[in-house]
């Protein structure tokens, strides 16, 4: 079936498309079933090659797209078909989706390879080699679900991937489900996973609502079907489309960690570094951006929605950037920087600068993955050092956080390669020409400048902060002197780890050429997709002024960072110099502006209280015990008792006695009388007689 479809689509490799999903699935099945009996390395290589093959397939698809830019749709099977609700498993190959496939599988493969080395050491430091297999199974599962997400040709299949990646992130954050962040026994990681899943679920709620509205508006949820009708629906009921897009925005906020749902991403750093790099930096979190770009026709139809999206992105970008400045944990800084960069992308796609957004998505995937991985390499290095200490002097029992930048310093000598690549990534992120980050970010800023000036301001400031905290991080980590013996004994990572880093560093450097100004390769590449929905992309024109401003800002920021952290490096146990300058503001940054606490108080605790109240008070005490057991049952038994006692022997007796008394009164003249039981019964009969006859006679 699959092949016949392919023939009708064209002679190229489109028919291979399903394999981007099947390869990783095969990989995970093998690892799951036989991993127990395989050597670690085999597991790792198998998983990596599964992902690698997926990359090759995507590449083939890309090549075939060069010839047939209109792309192809490959229906695999019917899924849910009820009445006019027709959902299929079918894959959409076009320039947009293929771009995502390339990024996911490409970066994914590199990270897989990196993870072979990383997890090898990690499981040993944490002392449970069993997790190695589990990790790679989940890792492949992630690639598979992510591929489903990007290759879907309808919103529901996309949703499958959408929730699938959420699940994977839950599982991978919780790989060390029995530890806390510092590897001690605890539930912290597990909770972080749940937090991520539930935050995502809130987003998914939005997605589902969007889906319902969409179906009842368009009577279909396939991309082509929906986009074809947008124009006329926009005339009739723009409200519906607005609703759809805003609901979607909620979903995006959940998945891409935007305000107000971003809180899960920092906690997600509980997962091993490769997870942070792949899922929480390079690919999964960008799904939101992809969704908006994918739904471009819908968003373009309702400017209000676009404004909303842009503002959410802009504010998040700045908000997260400020928080990043105040972090001490190496990965936390990167996490917030990720949120901030995602803000850039969301803002871009929100403004309608889809190409710019996607472009930044790609470059960001390169350098942010690079940063995380090299950061992971740093952490490994520190842990190696710490390990050595353990071996030298066993009295070392103090809790040690290998990710705390205040304990690092001077690592550029210990880990030269890592230092080099990390710096490349940092510079790229800071947006210094000619590295990738410069071009992509600059395109966004340029677009913003024209399309939505206030958001431009936000983003510009965010860019400034970005440069600053990256500078701060580089100086804190690599310069000065080691502030902890572990850092002093740190060692460079093995080639299996560094090689992917170098590759990524290359990409981060050269990524810019994808969409050089005046050339717009990437724009033209994506145009094919957007044209099919009659959506015309204006190539973002290069604006020298903007470029100069942003570069200047970046340089200034880095200079400031040097002033604070470079000139006289931080000493052991010395407070962060910013603290002196900013005081409470810094604390606020450091404490993430207390968003988590606010949420706890406003929602989570309230819900728990509600649940407690409902289950204990309402359902059990009131409804179950009081109402059912007391009221119903007791009333019933009491009624019985009363009837058996008072009424049967009492009231009827009572009537009897009453009558008896009456007769007593009458007969007392003559004789003292007493009444007794048999006669009570007789009296009951008599009472009956009286009542009945009374009634009958009154008739």
């Amino acid at each position, binding site marked *: 079936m699959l092949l016949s479809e392919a023939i009708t689509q064209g002679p190229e490799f489109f028919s291979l498309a399903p394999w981007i999903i099947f390869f990783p699935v095969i990989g995970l099945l093998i690892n799951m079933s036989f991993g127990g009996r395989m050597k670690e390395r085999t597991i790792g290589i198998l998983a990596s090659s599964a992902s690698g093959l997926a990359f090759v397939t995507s590449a083939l698809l890309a090549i075939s797209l060069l010839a047939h830019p209109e792309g192809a749709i490959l229906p695999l099977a019917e899924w849910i078909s009820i009445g006019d609700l027709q959902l299929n498993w079918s894959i959409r190959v076009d320039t947009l989706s293929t771009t995502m496939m390339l990024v996911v599988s490409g970066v994914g493969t590199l990270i897989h390879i990196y993870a072979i080395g990383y997890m090898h050491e990690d499981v040993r430091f944490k002392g449970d080699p069993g997790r190695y297999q589990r990790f790679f199974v989940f890792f492949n599962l992630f690639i598979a679900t992510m591929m489903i997400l990007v290759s879907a040709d309808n919103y529901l299949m996309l949703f499958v991937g959408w929730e699938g990646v959420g699940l994977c992130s839950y599982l991978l954050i919780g790989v060390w489900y029995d530890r806390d962040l510092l590897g001690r026994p605890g539930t912290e990681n597990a909770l972080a996973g749940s937090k991520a899943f539930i935050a995502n679920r809130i987003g998914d709620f939005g997605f589902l609502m969007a889906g319902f509205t969409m179906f009842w508006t368009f009577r279909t949820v396939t991309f082509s079907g929906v986009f074809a009708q947008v124009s006329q629906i926009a005339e009739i009921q723009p409200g519906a489309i607005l609703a759809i897009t805003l609901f979607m925005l909620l979903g995006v906020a959940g998945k891409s960690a935007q305000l107000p749902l971003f809180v899960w991403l920092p906690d997600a750093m509980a997962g091993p570094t490769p997870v942070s790099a792949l899922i929480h930096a390079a690919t999964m979190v960008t799904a939101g951006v992809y969704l908006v770009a994918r739904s471009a026709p819908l968003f373009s139809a309702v400017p209000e929605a676009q404004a909303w999206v842009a503002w959410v992105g802009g504010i998040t970008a700045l908000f997260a950037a400020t928080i990043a400045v105040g972090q001490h944990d190496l990965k936390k800084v990167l996490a917030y920087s990720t949120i901030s960069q995602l803000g850039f992308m969301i803002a871009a796609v929100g403004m309608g600068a889809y190409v710019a957004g996607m472009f930044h998505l790609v470059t960001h995937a390169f350098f942010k993955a690079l940063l995380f991985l090299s950061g992971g390499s740093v952490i490994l290095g520190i842990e190696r050092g710490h390990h050595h200490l353990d071996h030298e002097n066993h009295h070392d029992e103090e809790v040690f956080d290998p990710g705390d930048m205040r304990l690092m310093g001077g690592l550029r000598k210990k880990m030269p390669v890592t230092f080099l690549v990390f710096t490349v990534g940092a510079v790229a992120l800071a947006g210094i020409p000619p590295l990738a980050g410069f071009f992509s970010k600059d395109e966004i800023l340029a677009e913003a400048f024209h399309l939505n000036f206030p958001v431009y301001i936000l983003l510009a400031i965010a860019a400034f902060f970005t440069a600053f905290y990256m500078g701060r991080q580089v100086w804190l980590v690599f310069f000065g002197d080691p502030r902890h013996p572990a850092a002093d004994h740190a060692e460079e990572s093995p080639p299996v780890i560094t090689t992917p880093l170098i590759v990524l560093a290359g990409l981060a450097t050269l990524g810019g050429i994808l969409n050089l100004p005046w050339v717009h390769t990437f724009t033209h590449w994506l145009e094919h997709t957007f044209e099919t929905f009659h959506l015309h992309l204006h190539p973002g024109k290069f604006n020298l002024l903007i470029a100069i401003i942003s570069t200047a800002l970046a340089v200034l920021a880095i200079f400031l960072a040097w002033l604070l952290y470079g000139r006289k490096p931080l000493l052991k146990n010395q407070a962060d110099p910013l603290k002196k300058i900013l005081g409470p503001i810094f604390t606020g940054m450091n404490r993430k502006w207390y968003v988590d606490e606010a949420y706890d108080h406003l929602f989570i605790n309230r819900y728990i209280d509600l649940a407690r109240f409902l289950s204990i008070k309402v359902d059990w005490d009131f409804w179950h015990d009081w109402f059912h057991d007391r009221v119903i049952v007791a009333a019933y038994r009491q009624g019985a008792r009363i009837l058996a006692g008072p009424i049967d022997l009492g009231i009827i007796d009572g009537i009897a006695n009453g009558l008896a008394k009456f007769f007593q009164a009458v007969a007392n003249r003559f004789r003292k009388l007493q009444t007794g039981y048999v*006669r009570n019964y*007789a009296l009951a009969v*008599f009472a009956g007689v009286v009542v009945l006859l009374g009634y009958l006679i009154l008739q």
Partner: protein
Amino acid sequence: MVPISYYIILSAILFTIGAVCVLIRRNAIIIFMGIELMLNAANLAFVAFANQHQVISGQIFVFFVIAVAAAEVAVGLALIVTIFRTRKSIDVDQLNSLKG
């Protein structure tokens, strides 16, 4: 001649007296006599009505009632005697071991 209603009223009074007797006396024999009184009140009514309607069957009924009453007396007294044997008393107020 005496109007029929007098007879009926008389029989009603007798009947009530009998019932009241059942209700207020403790001695089984007396109670039983009360019942007999009720039956005979009925008999009076029968005779009266028979006279009113000029049909004989009413009076025949009286014989039946008397006969039945006799039978009841036999059984009733037998029972009372047995009770008396075991309890040395025929006070119905002492027959209260069965209740609830």
